[in-house]
């Protein structure tokens, strides 16, 4: 009988990851007790810090800044080698010299979200009151809280109006929150593969992931730091389930079909006979090396609570009344996590507000993950949208 090791223990020492949570390999903006972050749950979080990366140069009149908002398991390392995994930045195809988010033209900012585990204050950070990790003592945060923290960072950087706010998935939710709450500070917005509210099905998937984490005995009620354990099995299973939702039936079939992993015949065991199983286990185990389990609980929760219309008497259009921001909404045909219908509802609300909006649905079989992949049609659209917005903003050298 083959032994089964579904999710191996992380090879990276948890001390390294914990170190990154408090002392990130990034620029850090620290906010003292006199500048608390006012959270939706009623708590004033102070002191707190935001870890961020920047690329390119801010121009003299501070008009070329683009804020990139990362997705659930992303971080501020958009276009540089990741300090923990050593892998390339998560959006290097999009951000860089000559890329759609051209670092020769724009000043790109990306910050780790509040509640994250890569240097912005979150459950993996040290609680100044106890000197230990926050764990579940960390207050529950929301997408508006994340964005509120970003406004404080943008203030700190001396930027009044962002030329563009860009993001996919949870990053797209932050883009929409920026436009709904701070429309005057956002010249243009590029929300990708996202929604103005988290659907029941998506909340259900998140709950599955959280239950997997919490069912792992090593989670220890969220105090695994103190007890020298880490719920890598639970978090790995959560990641495996979530990863399926980022793909599509067609993409999985194309990539793996029913092909076997390093064998010709089934082993009649629960070993990873199929390539797709092996792939998912790899996704699970590589994820737990870089991500904090409690952070995963908090960030999925923040997405679940997101509902812009709910904050505006149930009428989405009211959130965007009179808005001057230029929008480009993008969805992908095979994305069933944030399907095109969600983007279309957003576009209808923006139309009802007479906003200047472009909406493109990109044909691809790669599912929700398409926004992170090399999809030339998407890049062309992002580039052209930024160029035309740049022209309207009076930015030079945009190729027009």
């Amino acid at each position, binding site marked *: 009988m083959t032994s089964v090791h579904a999710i191996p223990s992380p090879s990276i020492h948890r001390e390294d990851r914990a170190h990154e949570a408090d002392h990130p390999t990034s620029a850090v903006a620290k906010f003292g007790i006199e500048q608390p972050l006012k959270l939706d749950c009623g708590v004033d979080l102070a002191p707190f810090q935001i870890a961020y990366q920047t690329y390119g140069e801010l121009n003299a009149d501070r008009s070329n800044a683009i804020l990139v908002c990362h997705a659930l398991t992303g971080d501020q390392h958009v276009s540089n080698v990741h300090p923990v995994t050593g892998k390339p930045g998560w959006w290097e195809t999009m951000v860089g010299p000559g890329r759609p988010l051209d670092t020769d033209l724009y000043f790109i900012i990306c910050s780790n979200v509040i509640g994250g585990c890569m240097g912005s204050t979150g459950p993996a950070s040290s609680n100044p009151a106890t000197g230990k990790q926050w764990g579940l003592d960390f207050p529950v945060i929301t997408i508006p809280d994340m964005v509120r923290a970003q406004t404080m960072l943008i203030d700190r950087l001396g930027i009044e109006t962002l030329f563009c706010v860009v993001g996919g998935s949870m990053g797209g939710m932050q883009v929409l929150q920026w436009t709904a709450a701070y429309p005057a500070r956002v010249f243009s917005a590029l929300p990708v593969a996202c929604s103005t509210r988290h659907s029941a099905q998506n909340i259900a998937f998140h709950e599955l992931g959280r239950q997997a984490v919490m069912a792992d005995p090593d989670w220890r009620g969220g105090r695994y730091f103190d007890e020298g354990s880490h719920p890598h099995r639970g978090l790995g299973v959560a990641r495996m389930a979530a990863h399926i939702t980022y793909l599509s039936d067609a993409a999985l079939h194309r990539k793996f079909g029913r092909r076997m992993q390093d064998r010709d015949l089934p082993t009649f065991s629960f070993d990873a006979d199929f390539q797709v199983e092996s792939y998912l286990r790899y996704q699970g185990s590589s994820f737990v090396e870089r991500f904090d389990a409690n952070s995963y609980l908090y960030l999925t929760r923040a997405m679940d609570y997101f509902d812009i219309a709910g904050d505006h008497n149930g009428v989405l259009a009211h959130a965007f009344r009179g808005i001057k921001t*230029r929008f*480009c*909404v993008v969805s992908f045909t095979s994305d069933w996590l944030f399907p095109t219908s969600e983007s*279309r509802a957003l*576009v*209808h609300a923006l*139309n*009802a507000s*007479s906003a*200047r*909006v*472009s*909406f*493109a*649905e*990109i*044909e691809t079989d790669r599912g929700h993950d398409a926004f992170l992949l090399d999809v030339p*049609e998407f890049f*062309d*659209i992002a*580039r*052209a*949208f930024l*160029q*035309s*917005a740049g*022209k309207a903003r009076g930015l030079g050298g945009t190729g*027009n």
Partner: protein
Amino acid sequence: MALQEQALPLGGVAPDRTGKYRSDHLLVAEMIAPGSKVLDVGCGDGELLQLLESRGIDGRGIELSREGVNRCVARGLAVVQGDADTDLVNYPDDAFDYVILSQTLQATRQPRLVLENLLRIGRRAIVSFPNFGFWKMRLQLLVGGHMPRTENLPATWYDTPNIHFCTIKDFVQLCDEINVRMERAVALDLYGRPLRLSMPWWFWNMFGEQGVFLLSRGKAGK
């Protein structure tokens, strides 16, 4: 109501010296005051919108085909994927100064409803469509005995997207029925040149290959 009383034909169409733009697009652009806010319904690959933007007009578009939309967005135009039959209801009243429906009316499922929506969300509408009363059409049906096909409408009857053809005369009648005021009207020949203004309506209906109309709301209670 007599046709002649309803419409003042439009004169002074600037010829396209550069050859960059289609003549019917130039004609439409001439009808729109600079600085206006315009919605182009069925904007194709955005040629007309680009012309309008180059003239300082704030243009938006709706296009059914995904390829068309993506080409428009890649040109930096504000275009959304949508259907004239179903999506116009999402726009508020008076959202635009002009709403353009260029060569699309005949492809909608409910042309009358679409026309009414155009003049709800726009204070004015500009509608152009191929004239099925054009002599070549009539001749093909009369002599050839088959559904007409022309240079500009080459599709066969079984694969054409055009399901509601009308003549200039039919269109004028519809406008009258739903209390739409015709401010200007032009008929273009096969080469996109405007027919002479002095010609009577029956001549337009016979020799106009397409009609272009500037419309506004009629008086209430009429």
